[in-house]
């Protein structure tokens, strides 16, 4: 099945039709998912699109937009409480906060930081180390938040707590479109976020901004089909939310996952790195789950950080799709995946890291 979605002939034929159908107007479509950027760049899709169709990456990498205040909070917990094991997903491990501090630096200083694949691994660690406190750095969009919710509802051990850095996607799309700074003719919506929240969750953006939207899967054919659907909407003026990824995404999403999320989390204003405070875009724990909030449990206040991006780093413009990684003076010269200056270069889902890895590839055989 996956093979079909990578069929070069189908992809090329669809791209040809897109080239024919796109008039001389300029089209700018934005996706908001690191995995979409990976698919587009890895398979060289931009090289087969006409030059007047620009596909830009929005704030689709949860690690990149995690505010350094959250990282600093976790570091402060490690420094102030001596018996903590901090668990984190791998691509959060090297993300710098202020002064280039990161979880990996903390580890080098002797603090107990462990990389886990799943929150389930963190729970196991808490059970195996009952003389220690395990704090899990819970990061990710709606794709990941239900797993955190489900874990907290499965009676976790008393020595387990989290720093909730979960963010949600529709409010940030609302925020970006309202700003007027990001002028796009259509949105490619993230397939696995939408798997949880459903395609209907974006309909308010149609009413508010008349923006065409298509939920897309992650194979190259998925993305090309989604772009073709967007183009059709723009040309025919029939604006709606369509679902290209209907083999997985349902209009109402995963009802069980949504129910668990709503049981545990409440929406609250949250800071996005490089974007500022976005109303109702973060997930905080409801009062009955506060005992699992590491900040409350250990009475450690989150620090305030004024500057969230290093001077010279253009990550905040990159995540709004305003500039391409190559337009940043630091890109490749001083900022590389081996010595990243900004968050977009750290995460393997970051737009800069993907551009560094693949460059401007042509369509693969």
């Amino acid at each position: 099945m996956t093979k079909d979605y990578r069929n070069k002939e189908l992809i090329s034929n669809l791209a040809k039709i897109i080239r024919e159908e796109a008039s001389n107007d300029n089209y700018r479509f934005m996706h908001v998912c690191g995995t979409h950027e990976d698919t587009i760049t890895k398979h060289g899709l931009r090289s087969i699109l006409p030059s007047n169709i620009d596909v830009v990456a929005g704030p689709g990498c949860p690690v990149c937009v995690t505010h350094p205040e959250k990282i600093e909070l976790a570091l402060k917990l490690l420094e102030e409480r001596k018996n903590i094991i901090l668990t984190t997903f791998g691509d959060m491990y090297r993300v710098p906060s202020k002064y280039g501090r990161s979880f990996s630096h903390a580890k080098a200083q002797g603090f107990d930081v462990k990389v886990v694949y799943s929150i389930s691994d963190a729970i196991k660690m808490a059970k195996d180390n009952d003389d220690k406190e395990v704090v899990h750095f819970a990061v990710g969009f709606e794709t990941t938040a239900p797993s955190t919710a489900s874990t907290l509802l499965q009676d976790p051990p008393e020595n387990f707590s989290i720093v909730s850095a979960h963010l949600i996607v529709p409010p940030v799309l609302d925020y970006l479109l309202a700003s007027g700074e990001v002028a796009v003719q259509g949105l490619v919506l993230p397939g696995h976020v939408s798997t949880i929240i459903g395609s209907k969750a974006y309909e308010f953006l149609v009413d508010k901004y008349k923006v065409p939207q298509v939920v897309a899967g992650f194979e190259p054919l998925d993305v090309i089909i989604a772009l073709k659907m967007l183009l059709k909407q723009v040309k025919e003026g029939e604006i709606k939310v369509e679902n290209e990824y209907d083999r997985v995404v349902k209009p109402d999403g995963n009802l069980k996952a949504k129910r668990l999320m709503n049981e545990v989390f409440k929406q609250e204003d949250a800071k996005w790195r490089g974007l500022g405070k976005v109303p109702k875009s973060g997930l905080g724990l409801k009062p009955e789950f506060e005992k699992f909030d590491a900040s409350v449990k250990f009475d450690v206040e989150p620090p305030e950080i004024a500057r969230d991006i290093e001077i010279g780093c253009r990550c905040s413009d990159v995540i709004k799709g305003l500039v391409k990684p190559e337009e940043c003076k630091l890109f490749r010269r001083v900022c590389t995946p081996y010595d990243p200056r900004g968050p977009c270069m750290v995460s393997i889902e970051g737009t800069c890291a993907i551009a560094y890895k693949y460059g401007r590839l042509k369509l693969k055989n």
Partner: protein
Amino acid sequence: MQIYFMCLGVPGKLVKIIGARGIVSFGGAKREVDLSLIEKPIIGEYVIVHAGFAIERIDEGEARKTIKLLRETFGSF
């Protein structure tokens, strides 16, 4: 399978169910996953796995329909 990819969802086949957990085969490589987000999982079905949790089942029929339609319309098979 790149295990540290934040939002990546990997399709795999559910081969065993043990309470709220199960074993998913990714083209042969097996891994234990949490099934608590799936309503009534069934052995043999395909699921999308993200960060150790099955987040949704895959409707293979829909996928086949899409590909068939595309081939008829745009392919030259």
